[in-house]
């Protein structure tokens, strides 16, 4: 809210600190001052009043109270409630108008006053100037006076043209479905039961606590006015404001639930002001509906708790003086203070609230840093994060860069990847259609990244570790995409898993389960399930060419998608050293011609079984399919490494074993070892 420096000054006899200094003091002890601006002879302070103090500090008086507590300068709060100047004259307000509140829970107080013989016109310059400094537009002397008092005290006020109120009655009630109102600024609003209105016998006159209506508007010809100073339930005002999309200076204050005791001071203050500037006659007495009085709270404050929570000893004397400077009443006991909190501080209800008041006025900067004394409990190790770090490091070493994508995807992305929306989590209030669902897979956005980066990079290797969402559950996945060959990515997965201490990895044909058989994400002939022992932990492969095409990706992209939580269950830090043999290894090459559909693993298995312990390793180093070969055949070439842990293998023994392997391989008439 914007505050006038001169206005604030007017409540103090002594001079206030200069605007800049005052702003600094307020920032450090009360609320952040977001801007200072010179306007004519005045200064505008833009103060970000905290949301728990909207009920008292969206007003000059409220800020004055803060300034007084911080600076120690004396401030006398004007007592408008018992103002002598508005005693008024006959007839009484109740002779003009009756108040009827249908639900006291929605309107805890309704105070009204009538002023006759007003002359509506422009308001005096000094009022106009202050309104303008505070960012309000002057309208006429009645409305301006009401706004002036709102800025001064914090109580929103409204004025109706008495002659336009049908039946001399003001009714506070819920609107009926289908009722409409035209506001002062000529906007039409449809009302319903959730919205509280002020009405006469027939029509809505105002949206309670938010905006006045056209019907009982103050105009040049208005003679008699009804002033309203009421207290509405903040929740109701808030919901109506949201529903109507209509935020006003009044609604802002009512949403912070001002003190109901404020209505009387405000109405007397405004009546007096109007009388002063328009020469009207104030009717005697107020009409006041106030069934349940708001009374001060009492709180016990333990002095040692103040020290324990703030970590600094503040003397009892200082504590008492701070609390008093804020307008609280203090009764001293030995180790305890009994505090009576006036109703204008609705936010204070427990000891901790009082300690905050003491701390901030005393000054947080005076609290010196003290390292905590605590038992030496070592932090618990977070295994998930531990493995996360290792995975990320390995992938980075393998040339993969990490991405962080949005957790959201569009309905279009879902359909591109054949994900049924019924299995996905939909956002009730998405920010855009592009972000309507929670991602059920990391792959969607990874492919988007791959596509976008292909403008600048030929080779792309990216990965992401993050949560995916299905109905009722979320889980961490590790996925990556690369513009490489399938076998390269398979090598990446091997390295990754080996790095996690997992060795029993194998790759199985992709067998869709009945429920996901429709999910045709993967290229049917270029994908595999990644398995550890008998558990499937993820997939690896090319994305279905149809999807790749519809995404507009030109390069070949291979993808892996691993259930990270499953993966960590298999990960292990244990690693046993394998003794290095002292005896030399011998390498023999073997080239074999086999039918095209024979899998490498079949050959490897035969070599390993036939060779036994002495075959330490078998390396596939070449695959060849070509015209020179017999039809339907391919040539595979292996290095076989022979080594014994006990002795140096004699050439004869190696040759014999090698020949045995060849014999076993050639048992299949279709297989031919090339010599």
């Amino acid at each position, binding site marked *: 809210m914007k505050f006038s420096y001169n206005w604030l000054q007017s409540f103090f006899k002594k001079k206030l600190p200069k605007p800049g200094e005052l702003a600094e003091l307020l*920032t*450090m*002890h*009360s*609320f952040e001052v977001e801007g200072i601006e010179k306007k004519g002879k005045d200064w505008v302070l833009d103060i970000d009043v*905290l*949301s728990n103090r*909207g009920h008292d500090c969206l007003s000059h008086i409220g800020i004055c109270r803060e300034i007084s507590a911080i600076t120690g300068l004396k401030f006398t709060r004007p007592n408008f409630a018992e103002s002598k100047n508005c005693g008024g004259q006959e007839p009484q307000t109740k002779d003009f108008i009756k108040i009827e509140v249908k639900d006291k829970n929605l309107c805890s107080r309704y105070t009204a006053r009538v002023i006759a013989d007003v002359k509506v016109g422009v308001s005096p310059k000094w009022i106009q100037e202050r309104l303008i400094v505070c960012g309000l537009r002057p309208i006429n002397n009645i409305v301006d006076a009401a706004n002036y008092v709102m800025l001064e005290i914090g109580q929103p006020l409204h004025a109706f043209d008495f002659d336009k109120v049908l039946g001399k009655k003001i009714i506070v009630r819920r609107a009926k479905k289908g009722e409409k109102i035209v506001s002062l600024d000529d906007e039409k609003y449809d009302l319903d039961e959730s919205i509280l209105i002020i009405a006469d016998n027939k029509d809505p006159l105002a949206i309670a606590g938010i905006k006045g209506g056209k019907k009982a508007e103050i105009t040049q010809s208005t003679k008699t006015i009804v002033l309203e100073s009421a207290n509405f339930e903040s*929740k109701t005002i*808030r919901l109506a404001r949201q529903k109507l999309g209509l935020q006003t200076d009044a609604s802002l204050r009512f949403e*912070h639930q001002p003190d109901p005791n404020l209505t009387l001071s405000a109405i007397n203050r405004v009546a007096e002001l109007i009388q002063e500037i328009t020469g009207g006659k104030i009717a005697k007495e107020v009409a006041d509906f106030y069934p349940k009085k708001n009374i001060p709270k009492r709180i016990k404050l333990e002095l040692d708790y103040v020290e*324990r*929570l*703030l970590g*600094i000893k503040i003397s009892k004397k200082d504590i008492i003086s701070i609390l008093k400077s804020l307008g609280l009443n203090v009764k001293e006991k030995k180790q305890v203070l009994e505090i009576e909190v006036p109703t204008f501080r609705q936010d204070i209800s*427990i000891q*901790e*609230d009082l300690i*905050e008041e003491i*701390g*901030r006025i005393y000054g*947080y900067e005076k*609290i*010196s*840093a*003290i*390292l*905590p004394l*605590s038992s030496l409990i*070592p*932090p*618990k190790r*977070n295994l*998930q*994060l531990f493995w996360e770090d290792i995975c990320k*490091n390995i992938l*980075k*070493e393998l*040339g993969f*860069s*990490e*991405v*962080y*994508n949005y*957790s*959201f995807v569009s309905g279009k992305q879902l359909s591109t990847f054949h994900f049924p929306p019924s299995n996905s989590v*939909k*956002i*009730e*209030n*998405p*920010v855009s259609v592009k972000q309507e669902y929670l991602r059920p897979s990391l792959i969607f956005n990874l492919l988007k990244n791959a596509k*976008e*980066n292909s403008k*600048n990079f030929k080779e*792309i*290797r*990216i990965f992401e570790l*993050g949560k995916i*969402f299905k109905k009722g559950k979320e889980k961490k996945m590790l996925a990556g995409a690369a513009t490489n060959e399938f076998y390269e990515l398979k090598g990446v997965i091997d390295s990754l898993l080996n790095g996690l201490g997992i060795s029993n990895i194998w790759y199985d044909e992709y067998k869709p389960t009945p429920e996901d058989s429709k999910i045709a994400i993967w290229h049917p002939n270029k994908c595999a399930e990644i398995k550890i022992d008998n558990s499937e932990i993820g997939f690896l492969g090319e994305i279905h060419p149809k999807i790749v095409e519809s995404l507009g990706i030109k390069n070949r992209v291979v993808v892996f998608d691993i259930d990270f939580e499953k993966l960590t269950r298999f990960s292990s830090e244990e690693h046993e050293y394998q003794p290095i043999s002292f005896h030399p290894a011998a390498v023999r090459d073997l080239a074999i011609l086999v039918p095209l559909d024979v899998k490498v693993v079949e050959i490897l298995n035969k070599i390993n079984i036939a060779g036994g312990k002495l075959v330490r390793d078998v390396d596939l180093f070449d695959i060849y399919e070509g015209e020179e070969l017999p039809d339907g055949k391919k040539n595979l070439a292996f290095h076989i490494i022979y080594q014994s842990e006990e002795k140096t293998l004699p050439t004869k023994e190696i040759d014999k074993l090698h020949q045995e392997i060849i014999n076993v391989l050639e048992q299949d008439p279709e297989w031919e070892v090339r010599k």
Partner: protein
Amino acid sequence: MSSCSEIKKQALKKVKGAKNLKELDRVYKRYLGGKGEVFLVLKNLKDFSENKRKEIGKEINLVKKDIEEAIKEKQEALKEIAINEIIEKDKLDITIPGKKIKKGHLHPITLTLRKIQEIFQNMGFSIIEGPEVETEWYNFDALNIPKDHPARDAWDTFWLQGNEKLLLRTHTSPVQIRYMEKNQPPFRIIVPGRVFRHEATDASHEINFYHLEGLMIDKQISMANFKAVMEHFLKSFFGKKIKMRLRPSFFPFTEPSFEIDISCVACGGKGCSVCKKTGWLETMGAGMVHPNVLKAGGLNPKDWQGFAFGMGVDRLIMMKHKINDIRLFYNNDLRFLKQF
């Protein structure tokens, strides 16, 4: 047959004249080889009297030694010349760019979280995580933010469709409650994680971003303790002593509540465009845990007290690396990511 001294003279002359190792080898063969001149002298010794034999034998052995030494010396010199010639030819242009090694990069958020976590772990804080989809209870009610309270407006929330009323957590604070429910104080935890806000995106706002929450509960944990922990964190994180100030604030889940500003890392507090001329940057919200929050977590506020804080990780990285647009973190342009 030449005399010993004649052999020596000639040999040394030839050694001296050898231009390369090959020539030197020829000299060696000619004098010291199997059929070389020294050998011939030795071979003919038998034709002399015993005394003469001794004399010549002694002399020729000395000659042999001298030639050997001379050859060895020459050999070293020639080798050096040969190596120098190779070195001379081995020229390169050191301004030609080095070969690109293909390596990956970790996301700046990962790198920063690691750094923050390390600092707090060294102070005994455990790292805890929690779900991104939350209930209203954990995200709001348990944190002393009642339904229809204006305070809820401060957290623009994404709601999920479905029977159960679920939402995307707007902060990592729900994990405070989840942790308190299952653990008995004293404890110190930090909670890093992704959070969500329903708002229009711009250079400083994103719909998902990262938070890091801290919570320390014990018998007598005070605001003064918070200051000390935070000063240590800021110093370790920015690598230099950073001025900080605590400003009153309001959060429903802490009382007292305060905002932590640090002196602007771009201008050192003088005032610049980064800090909007104030010299200060807002880095986090904090406070002493509200008794209602302790109760919601199953703890008795009479027995336990402590502080909590929450910081925006993205903002911290932006300050540290002078990044001016938060959206860069989620656009995943490799030209950006490869800088980290």
